């Protein structure tokens, strides 16, 4: 398509040149049209696949949208009723707290372990490349598969983890990782950390590669090696990458759904219920699409706060 547009553009240019007379159809305005034409595919794509769903979801959250709506198209407007219902539900505060704990725990674990591994792999040692690519495995597995495997590993009676701990003599009876209200969230966070490490390692490792070796050489001449080199060379140089990793990580983690559904389904007794799982349950299990959309929008708003934060941090970095 762009090829034809280009040839047309060329044609138009030669025409104007040959014409010479009064410009009935201004060159400038025509150029405008062409500029817009180049933009059109991207704009159309954004409107279709980002604009429409967001607008639809916002509209849905102000409607009584039920299974019947799909057939009849009737969805009465109810104002903020859906928001009031979901936010006054006894589950809302639980979900909100769980979402915060899940996100904070996952990000902290993924980032610290990811950074540690990235720094470790920066050294040269045999099998470095192979080990680093093996580290990507959790990322390559479908989430449904990982959660099914972890569900088995964490099983109380015959799970691999408990068997291992028992054989070491650390515990005498199985720990109910996924069925205790006090442990389930931590277990789910642990699995999510495992899944998130490859992303953190990959991006941070890339950032580390960009730090010139000369800096370390200069630092070592000044006596800064090991921890001090990390503190005064690596960390400041890595900061832009760190902010990208953290903000993307938060946004990715806030919306995590499949891992929790696969591991616990929000249980036991709602102890792993998050805003995302609640939104899913309301829409697709209870068929209350309006309330589900309202819950989803609350999640979008929270993500938006972090996105704005990210933009501000980035701007400040540029200003400096």
């Amino acid at each position, binding site marked *: 398509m762009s090829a034809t547009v280009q040839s047309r553009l060329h044609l138009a240019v030669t025409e104007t040149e040959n014409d010479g007379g009064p410009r009935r159809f201004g060159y400038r305005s025509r150029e405008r049209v062409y500029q817009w034409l180049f933009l059109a595919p991207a704009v159309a794509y954004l409107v279709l696949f980002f604009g429409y769903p967001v607008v639809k979801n916002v509209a849905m959250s102000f409607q009584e949208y039920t299974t019947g709506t799909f057939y009849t198209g009737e969805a009465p407007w109810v104002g903020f009723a859906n928001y009031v219902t979901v936010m006054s539900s006894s589950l809302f505060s639980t979900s909100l707290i769980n979402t915060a704990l899940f996100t904070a725990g996952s990000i902290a674990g993924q980032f610290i372990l990811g950074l540690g591994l990235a720094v470790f792999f920066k050294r040269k040692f045999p099998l470095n490349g192979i080990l680093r690519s093996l580290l990507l495995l959790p990322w390559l597995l479908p989430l449904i598969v990982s959660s099914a495997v972890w569900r088995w590993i964490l099983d109380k009676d015959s799970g691999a983890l408990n068997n291992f701990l028992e054989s070491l003599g650390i515990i005498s009876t199985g720990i109910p990782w996924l069925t205790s209200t006090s442990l389930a969230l931590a277990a789910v966070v642990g699995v999510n950390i495992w899944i998130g490490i490859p992303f953190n390692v990959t991006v941070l490792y890339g950032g580390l590669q960009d730090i010139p070796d000369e800096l370390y050489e200069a630092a070592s001449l000044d006596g800064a090696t090991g921890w001090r080199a990390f503190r005064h060379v690596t960390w400041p140089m890595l900061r832009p990458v760190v902010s990208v990793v953290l903000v993307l990580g938060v946004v990715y983690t806030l919306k995590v759904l499949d891992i929790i559904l696969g591991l616990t389904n929000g249980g*036991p007794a709602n102890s792993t219920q998050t805003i995302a799982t609640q939104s899913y349950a309301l829409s697709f*299990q209870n068929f209350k699409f309006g309330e589900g959309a309202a819950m989803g929008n609350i999640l979008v708003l929270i993500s938006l706060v972090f996105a704005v934060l990210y933009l501000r941090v980035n701007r400040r970095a540029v200003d400096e």
Partner: protein
Amino acid sequence: MKSAFTKTKAIASTVTAMAALPLILTGCGASSPAANGPVSELSVVDYYNNEPDKTIIGDTLAACGTQSGVTIKRETVPGKSLIAKVLQQASSKTLPDVLMLDNPDLQQIAGTGALAPLTDFKISTENYPQGILSAGTYKDKVYGLAPTVNTIALFYNKDLLTTAGVTPPKTWDELKAAAAKLTSGGQYGLAFDANATYEGTWQFLPFMWSNGGDEKNIATTETTEALQLWTDLVKSGSVSSSALNWTQADVKDQFVAGKAAMMVNGPWQIPTLDKESALHYGVVNIPVKDSSKTAVGPLGGEVWTVPQTGNKAKQAKAAEIVACMNSDVNQLAMAKARNTIPSKSTLAAQFASENPKLASFTELVKTARARTGQLGEDWPDQATKIFTAIQNALTDKASPADALKQAQQG
């Protein structure tokens, strides 16, 4: 200069075409309400996407199609995405000619107006037990019929019970005593599914119903007693607390591995159990509180429906397919092949004698109750309350009575 003008026009029309793209995309799937000419093809959607069900149902559908002189264009979708698919098809007016639904979803979909009542096509609803009919009924009209149904019962490991000197329990007290006696080391007395999904609710219903519990109001003594039984079984260690996260398939795995001496499960597990030559099992009714009570099972199974596609000729043919799927011969054949129970009560005696393994299930489905029989479209809401109460009681977050009261209040 004329050319420049036409070019602008061309650009304008391109832009218009692009703006209209979403409309075209959504529009092109819509089936045109064609003239009522001869019908040669019917589309069918169901969720039997695993073997052997996939082939058994597919062959029966194809045979019914041949009988009615149409070819069947069948699509099988995963169970979890069926409702999403149906809703999407309802909004784009592309519903299939014949649609299978899980019975608790029927009223939800019938409530949208997307289904045609089967009485419109003079399909007989005689000889079906009340429970089965009520599952397919919405506002006094039958919209769906299930050729075969199922329910759940108590499976027990004959060898383990004999070794422990335990007979299959009939009452709750016997169940508690038997389960305690059968628990030792890595082996639990009983396994059931108490997970945070409708499956957990489904497994709890027979305990609740046989004790006179009411799904519309769960904050009652009868339901509290049933939940107290489950809580006692888990707290005493006769049932692993893993039950809080088990699916029915996990429960079966525990039973097959000998880690549970008894389990609550359905006849669809029988093929897997029969593959284990070392496993000797029996099936009895789920125990009731005392001998004055009778067992009531929840009714499982899928109903076949005729969606409102707007094409009368196709709907009439589709109704023939639904009737054919429910013919005596097909009910018996599919039930036998799929380890389910024919739904017509007139076939029960013959079926039970031919398939002794399914005899106790055949007896149970006669009185089994549909989950939506009373609740109708409120089933998802109330089912969520029930499994929430179960989870809160079993994790000790609240006493059974409080858990049920809190859940009922929402």
